[in-house]
């Protein structure tokens, strides 16, 4: 009798855990599908809110924090109010720090750290290049070291170089090999599962088209 109940409870618990997992995956998928159709600032902030809710409910999953952070970085580029840009990035940095503590040494997380520093840099390049320039490089380099197949760090490095004046080794010609390498990696890139990041391919295609390659 005791045994019977134990087994029953075990099944019930497993069932619940499974249901929980499904619930997480489904919620994530639902929100990830929406990513491509986001258009205005508010839709990005809405989506960031959605991921943050999942993150706070799950507590030990790094991906919802990751996507929340990613969306806030994009929001900082989209908002035209200059004072708000840093506020979004402060939030993005807090989220990515939590993700980092849950999933240490993750290439995608370092990619995002580099992307956030790049966004900081773009707000006031004259005064910020010294500090954030180094941060962009260090984080993206770490991201590449952690996963040599990840196409995103090279895409971001290429973008940084593309917008750097030619006198400092920037410009489209210098950026081109980065985009080409990144594209090669995108062609071979297989995300570990359905929830892992896949963004960036379209942007690299666009950049290559613009440069003419």
């Amino acid at each position: 009798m005791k045994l019977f109940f134990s087994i029953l409870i075990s099944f019930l618990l497993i069932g619940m855990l499974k249901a929980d997992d499904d619930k997480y995956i489904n919620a994530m998928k639902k929100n990830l599908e929406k990513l491509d159709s986001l258009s205005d600032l508010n839709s990005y902030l809405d989506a960031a809110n959605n991921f943050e809710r999942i993150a706070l409910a799950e507590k030990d999953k790094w991906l919802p924090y990751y996507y929340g952070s990613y969306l806030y970085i994009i929001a900082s580029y989209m908002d035209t109010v200059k004072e708000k840009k840093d506020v979004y990035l402060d939030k993005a940095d807090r989220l990515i720090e939590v993700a980092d503590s849950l999933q240490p040494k993750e290439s995608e997380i370092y990619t995002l750290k580099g992307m956030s520093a790049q966004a900081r840099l773009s707000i006031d390049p004259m005064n910020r290049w010294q500090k954030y320039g180094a941060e962009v490089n260090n984080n993206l380099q770490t991201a590449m070291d952690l996963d040599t197949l990840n196409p995103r760090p090279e895409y971001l490095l290429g973008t940084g170089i593309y917008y750097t004046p030619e006198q400092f080794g920037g410009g489209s010609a210098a950026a081109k090999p980065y985009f080409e390498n990144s594209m090669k990696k995108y062609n071979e890139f297989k995300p570990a599962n359905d929830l892992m990041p896949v963004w960036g391919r379209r942007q690299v295609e666009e950049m290559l088209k613009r440069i003419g390659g």
Partner: protein
Amino acid sequence: MKIFFTLFLFISINSILLSQTKISGKVTDQDNSPLPGANIYIKDTYDGTSSSADGKFFFSTQEKGNALLIVSFIGYKQKEEKLNLKGTEIHLEIKLESDSKELGTVVISAGSFEASDENKAVILRPLDIVTTAGAQADIYGALKTLPGTQQIGEADGLFVRGGSAYETKTIIDEMVVQNPFYSSVPDIPSRGRFSAFLFKGTVFSTGGYSAQYGQALSSALILKTQDLADQTLTSISLLPLGFGGSHSQRWENSSLSSEIFFSNLAPYFKIQKERTDWKIAPRGFDGSLNFRQKFSKSGMLKLFSSVSLGDLSLNMKNLDDPSVKDFFRQKSGNYYFNANYRDIIDDDWTIFVGASYSYDKDKTDFNTLKLTDGDNLSQAKITVTKNIINNSFLTFGGEVQNTVYNNKYEVFENKVNEIISAGYLEADIFFTNDFAGRAGVRTEYSKVLNKANLAPRISLAYRVGREDQFNFAYGIFYQIPDKDFLLQSNFSGKIDFDFERADHYILNFQHISDERTFRVEVYYKDYDRLAKGTLYNSYPFFQQLSFVPFSSAGKGYAKGVDVFWRDRVTFPYTDYWVSYSYLDTKREFSNYPTLAFPTFATPHTFSVVAKYWIPEVTTSLGLTYTFATGRPYFNPNNPEFLGDKAKDYNNLSFSLSYLTSIFNSFTVVFFSVDNLPGFRNIFGYRYSTDGSYREPVVPTVLRSAIIGLFINIGQSNPY
């Protein structure tokens, strides 16, 4: 067994009851304006939504019983609401309070100019200091373009609001620096010892500063050193006056930077003829080491050490006998060490402990006389900050400064050993986001004076719009008399002085936005107990004045208006600032026979700094124009003491920086000209003993030009 059954029942019931609770409402700010984009959700569930453009929200949840609703939004404090979910619709009106940390609060800023990357509302950025034309990358040169400072071309130091250079103290990482300037030669100013690149934050206070700092009657320059080096980097610099190199090595949680520079001005003076008759053109060596170690999340250990050696000699005109020249030679050595550790404990406590040591020695030959002038300062400081509520915090701590002044004139040795102990307590209180105050008290004891003091200070700030605020400050400031008073009175028997005292009253209005800054400040400074007495080794020494015995009977005042305007947007790629200072001051100190407008002050000072960036050729152009009315000088033939005034001062400096890449290495080529139009500036006159002959005090060159090269090895872009 029973428990299992209950649990089983509970689980089943839980999944049977699938009825929903609808939750709707509206999110607004304190002024009832709707807040779109707020995140509204039930804690520990996925259930929730974002508020729409009109602040309204609606969602439903299958949760039952007691639950916690959370509303969060960037820039606002998170709000929690206890709910009982039982199927009946819940309607909520939620008001969010703005979070001062993210949207900014009033900043206590009476009397101070801040240059920082960390704070958003600052007047200058660290880069502004090194890119100001005419400043020659010297921190002090750049600060002279701010209101409240005087244009003094014949002596080093910052002369702030009627104060002498002695009344300004330089503080690095919370600790006073004994000799922030290179050793100087009579009538030739020297530059600051420390490179502007060492610092991430600068607060230049022209009055009313915090009780954490003391021993400065007029002004405090508070410098905060960089944290970890950003990256591993090697660079070299080439100038006609010397060359040097630096290397920074960055590890994950630590970094080590070293820098050396050799200077020899002889080749440069071959091209640029100096008015000064140099025998040995200034030559020297500078080296520094900078170590940083980060511990855990918030601990930071900083070690900084620097050494500099210098040598020079020149012939000076003898005013009493033009047929002879006075020979002057100076060998100088300076060593500085600063170690400090800062950490945050339990989120609420910040602890700072620091120690520093500095040693300075100048050996001077004047004709056949030999003089040695030395001092060393050992100090220790501890400061604890406790966060109380919101942004309000309490700061307290103490410091001990032991200075040994050492003087040798031929065979006569003289030594004064001074110990100043100080304690301070200060509270920063935010009454609201728009109204804040800082109240503090500082107490000091001086061993040589055998006296103690108590200095209360208060500073208030009131914000009237997002970008406009009023500030008020009052405080008492003490300082022991300059070392020459201590040494000479010690030599003649007994040191009998009181602390010199200045009371500051400051009122200001400022408007700070990202692009434009306007600031106007009025002040009154009351001097009391200034040291009086005839000092034989002071320069310039007005020997025609009658002898004044040592006392603390000096007094004086300074009052004026400082105006600052900066604009970064009106003209494309152009950033400019304008400063104007009006000053009225009189003082009786040193061997002044009466109250007089001092030689280091003038009523009107005006300067404009402009920077223009040409992106097509990655070149930055800078112009700095400075005007100051003539300053009084001592004429023994005029019965009115300091009754003569030199002519007005004008200077226009130009600088150009071209940023490029040479051999795949990021390179800056810079070129600057000081006094481009060749204004014939005269700072004053020096008279012969009988008053029959005078010589003008002029800059060492009429117009100076310099070109330099700075290379980051193996790095093609600036980052």
